[in-house]
């Protein structure tokens, strides 16, 4: 135990922060792997749901070509991943850490609050990305693959969706007394977000007032960005070129940014660091 003789290793703040997040994320990954229920929720549920739906319904609409079906399946996978893997599992993780008084311990250490909240999101995000990649490989092998008009927009949509849903998970954890009650507390947002996500049909099919309102719900812009990026299809169903997809992405990106602001405010309002029990 040195007093002032040891010079702390000088690292840039970003590197040190990344190292701290990595240490926590590693522990979170271990915990996810050891929790069978959470692991099933994270890995099997989205895949099973998308697989079952693709078999009984026509993703992308009746009579859609294979590339459209492939895009619809991938968009559905993203939405399911964000809801089950990120929203539900992450809310559960925050509540569990809080009730176990792990958050209180972490606050005494060198991690910032942002780092503490980010760490459990790392394995969740990795699972979603892995599922999308597996999905992409599957539709490429089984169907006519989507054209990948603008992959950047897919990445933007995924990251934006992860941020918004992650922030919602932070806020929802504060409203959840126990790990078990997360099943109930996550329900309202799922019920509100899912029908408007627009993942069952290709864009443009259900335009009208409902469709216009839906564009301003949190998950719809993620789906829109997926369609834009994967197939070049915009909200009204037109097929765009790469150059045209950028301006078309403005509205969904702005909507996601607005929801991210709402997410930050909600997280600040409801997040709790000390146990509720």
């Amino acid at each position: 135990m040195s007093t002032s003789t040891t010079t702390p290793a000088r690292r840039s703040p970003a590197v040190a922060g990344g190292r701290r997040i990595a240490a926590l994320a590693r522990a979170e990954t271990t915990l996810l792997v050891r929790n069978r229920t959470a692991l099933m929720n994270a890995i099997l549920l989205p895949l099973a749901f998308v697989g079952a739906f693709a078999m009984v319904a026509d993703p992308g609409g009746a009579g859609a070509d294979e590339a459209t079906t492939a895009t619809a399946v991938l968009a559905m996978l993203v939405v399911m991943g964000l809801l089950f893997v990120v929203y539900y599992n992450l809310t559960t993780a925050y509540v569990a850490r809080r009730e176990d008084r792990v958050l209180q311990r972490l606050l005494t250490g060198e991690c910032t609050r942002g780092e503490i909240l980010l760490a459990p999101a790392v394995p969740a995000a990795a699972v979603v990305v892995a599922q999308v990649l597996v999905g992409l490989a599957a539709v490429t092998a089984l169907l006519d693959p989507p054209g990948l008009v603008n992959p950047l927009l897919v990445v933007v949509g995924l990251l934006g969706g992860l941020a918004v849903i992650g922030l919602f998970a932070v806020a929802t954890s504060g409203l959840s007394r126990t790990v078990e009650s997360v099943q109930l507390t996550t329900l309202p947002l799922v019920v509100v977000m899912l029908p408007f996500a627009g993942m069952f049909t290709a864009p443009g099919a259900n335009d009208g007032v409902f469709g216009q309102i839906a564009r301003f719900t949190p998950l719809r812009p993620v789906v829109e960005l997926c369609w834009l990026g994967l197939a070049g299809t915009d909200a009204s169903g037109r097929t765009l070129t790469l150059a045209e997809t950028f301006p078309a992405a403005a509205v969904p990106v702005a909507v996601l940014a607005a929801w991210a602001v709402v997410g930050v405010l909600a997280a600040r309002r409801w997040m709790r660091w000390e146990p509720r029990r």
Partner: protein
Amino acid sequence: MTPEPTDRPYAGPVVSVREARRRYGAFEAVRGVDLEVGRGELVALLGTNGAGKTSLVELVEGLAPADGGQVRVLGRDPYRERRAVVPHVGVMLQNAGFSADLTVAETARMWAGTLTRPRPAGEVLDAVGLSHRAQVRVVSLSGGERRRLDLALAVLGRPDLLVLDEPTTGLDPESRQATWRLVRGLLDDGVTVLLTTHYLAEAEELADRIAIMDAGRVVRSGTVADVVAAEPARIEFVPHDAGGAPLVLTPDDLPVLAGVPSTGHAPDRGPTAERGRVRLRTERLQEDLTTVLLWARERGLRLHELEARPASLEQAFLALAEAGGAPDHQTGRTTHVTEGTAA
């Protein structure tokens, strides 16, 4: 909040608290406390439940801002300059938790990964006697083992200052001794320690200085010897006559004693005689005991159950607690690390 390490030599006190205050709504838990801890020193905070010990150490840990006064750790504000201070401070909260499904080794490795200059985890687990339990999940640990893991994490970052909130509560005597040995070893290495405890023996064993808190204030501080010296010694006896029959005396029947205030001057400090038992508190034990014994011989009295003893820390502590009306403060008030801070 710049992450600038405080690696330049700092010569002042490691902890310096001036007139610190902390409020929870209308309740003021810390009411103007002064406290200083020098480098390499161990200061023990004593007090009844709800005296404000935890609320005070949370200010030192930088978990909450002071509502008044000044708190400095290594010369800096531990709350506002947290990033600079926190790598130098090891904290053991009263009840922080662990993820039940991680093993002891995984827990230590995770914590080490968040620290600027961690010691090897294996070395620390060894020091707290947990290396044989390294592969065991935390959920299977006993309460005492969890407390030792707590201590291991607190010392893992080579802290200059260690803040221990009731480190041995719930430990069996053997584990308590082991913890004391570990803390003494850290003191030998120059670590500064601020600890709170319910165990007066722990303070007598470890502390260079103690501070006794009551109702949010430090009511007495100094070395154990200083604090005990301020407390009078005690003489007790049950007087009987030469034939062996009990005698009922009043304080006025007693001789004039040099170290005992008369009942008229200090009714609560003077001699008492209840149900035949006479109790004296004296600041001059030897002289007054001699006077009492000579007085008894002159009158041919037999002093049954005669006791004469110097003050103990326990007696000093109880006397202060009584004077402060301590039972009123035993509200069991819990404090939360994040109280008053936004997410």
